[in-house]
């Protein structure tokens, strides 16, 4: 029996709204199947399951906004017996905490220091209860040493008699979850955290990409439009391939230490029409042949712009590349997406005077930049990474 939970689709996400169930109780599911669509600050996201089996029951209703980690559905292994309880949440909320079929939330709650006699509760539970005008003393705790944790407050809320929500006068109205304002708030939260916490350092390197552009033109000349490659695909591949030798730029900085990632999932920063941006991952970017990488890039861009992408694409870019495209500025000094530790930038390619063997010649130049986390890496290695990417772009046939 496994729980399908509201996933965290980025460091800045606290809650999501269930928009649609794509499976119903009794449906068979395989790992990677899309179970539900959730509305977040980043738009509508298709949520995949990593549990295979049969949907036992749905625990959250369409329209509900629930915090990250909240169980959305129960998935039982095939052959396992169905739960006897009727479906949906009200029944669940009636059960005593000990009998609840899900374990405590994944991240162990940090208990605040307790002045004499005060009720033990996690900071998130305190905040949530205060927002809803609930008294912690009336809530049964299921956390360590009986502490009230987030889920307990949630259950208590559902038990509370219906009526006008006693939203206590704590802070402003909750932020609007979707739409341009929600996205702006999400960007603001992530970028403010980045600038507050991450000691960035920056490097730039002008890459001669004439060979790449010539190779692309020759390769695309006799291909149908749908089979043509864009320079953006070469950039993604070159960056991912170079990163294999530079693990200190690929991974996450969490709980005071760096966790390198074995896989290289490059997030591709995409500007949305109408404002905002989003950087979903292309999985195992370094392993993909150029054709497939290009197809995935196009598919991802199209789905993102249509407002549909998958939870796994949002959750796990290990590094990001922001490319200004054909009609942008010469270079960009990007801001790292926490908890990542590096972001690469690529300016708009332009013809520039360049010195080759003592003579000045016009060459196609792309200004590569790197912003990286000084807690994890140093500038010397960063410079080598940029040079490695530039070297790969000089030999595109090997990508």
């Amino acid at each position: 029996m496994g729980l399908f939970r509201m996933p965290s689709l980025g460091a800045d996400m606290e809650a999501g709204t269930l928009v649609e169930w794509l499976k119903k109780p009794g449906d068979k599911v395989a790992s990677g199947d899309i179970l539900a669509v959730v509305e977040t600050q980043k738009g509508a996201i298709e949520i995949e399951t990593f549990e295979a089996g049969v949907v036992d029951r749905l625990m959250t209703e369409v329209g509900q906004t629930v915090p990250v980690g909240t169980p959305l559905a129960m998935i039982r292994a095939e052959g396992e017996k169905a739960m006897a309880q009727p479906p949906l949440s009200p029944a669940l909320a009636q059960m005593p905490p000990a009998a609840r079929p899900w374990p405590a939330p994944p991240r162990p709650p940090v208990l605040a220091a307790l002045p004499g006699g005060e009720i033990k509760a996690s900071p998130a539970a305190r905040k949530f209860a205060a927002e809803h005008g609930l008294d912690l003393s009336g809530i049964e705790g299921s956390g360590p040493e009986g502490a009230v944790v987030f889920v307990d407050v949630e259950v208590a809320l559902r038990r509370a008699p219906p009526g006008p929500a006693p939203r206590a006068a704590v802070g402003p109205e909750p932020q609007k979850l979707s739409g341009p304002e929600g996205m702006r708030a999400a960007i603001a939260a992530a970028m403010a955290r980045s600038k507050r916490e991450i000691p960035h350092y920056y490097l730039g390197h002008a890459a001669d990409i004439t060979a790449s552009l010539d190779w692309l033109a020759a390769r695309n000349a006799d291909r149908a439009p749908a089979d043509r490659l864009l320079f953006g695909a070469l950039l993604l591949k070159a960056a991912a391939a170079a990163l294999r030798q530079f693990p200190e730029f690929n991974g996450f900085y969490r709980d005071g230490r760096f966790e390198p990632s074995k896989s290289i999932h490059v997030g591709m920063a995409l500007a949305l029409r109408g404002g905002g941006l989003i950087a979903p991952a292309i999985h195992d970017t370094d392993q993909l042949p150029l054709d497939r990488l290009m197809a995935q890039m196009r598919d991802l861009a199209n789905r993102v712009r249509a407002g549909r992408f998958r939870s796994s694409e949002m959750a796990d870019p290990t590094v990001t590349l922001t490319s200004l495209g054909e009609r942008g500025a010469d270079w960009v000094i990007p801001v790292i997406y926490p908890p990542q530790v590096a972001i690469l930038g690529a300016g708009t390619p332009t013809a520039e005077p360049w010195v080759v063997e003592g003579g000045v010649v016009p060459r196609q130049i792309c200004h590569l930049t790197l912003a990286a986390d000084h807690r994890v890496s140093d500038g010397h290695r960063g410079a080598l990474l940029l040079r490695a990417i530039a070297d790969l772009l000089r030999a595109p046939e090997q990508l």
Partner: protein
Amino acid sequence: MNRDEIKAALLQQIGNIAPEADLSKLDPAVDFREELDIDSIGFLNLVIALAEQLRIPIPEKDYPRLRTIESALSYLTAATQRIA
């Protein structure tokens, strides 16, 4: 296909790439990629769609001729006639 039909097809496909744009206000003599902020992936999608719908190849070296609605119409009309 005559010029009017090709124009309808072109505007329809541009509308798919930039759904929020009011194409009736688009000046046929301006660079529409600039005007509508269409990036390289969006432009490639447009070329793919036009090549399929009009059954013409549209090689990369001809992309500059798709700069404005006017120039694109002349190019696409000539290209479809060449094929027919």
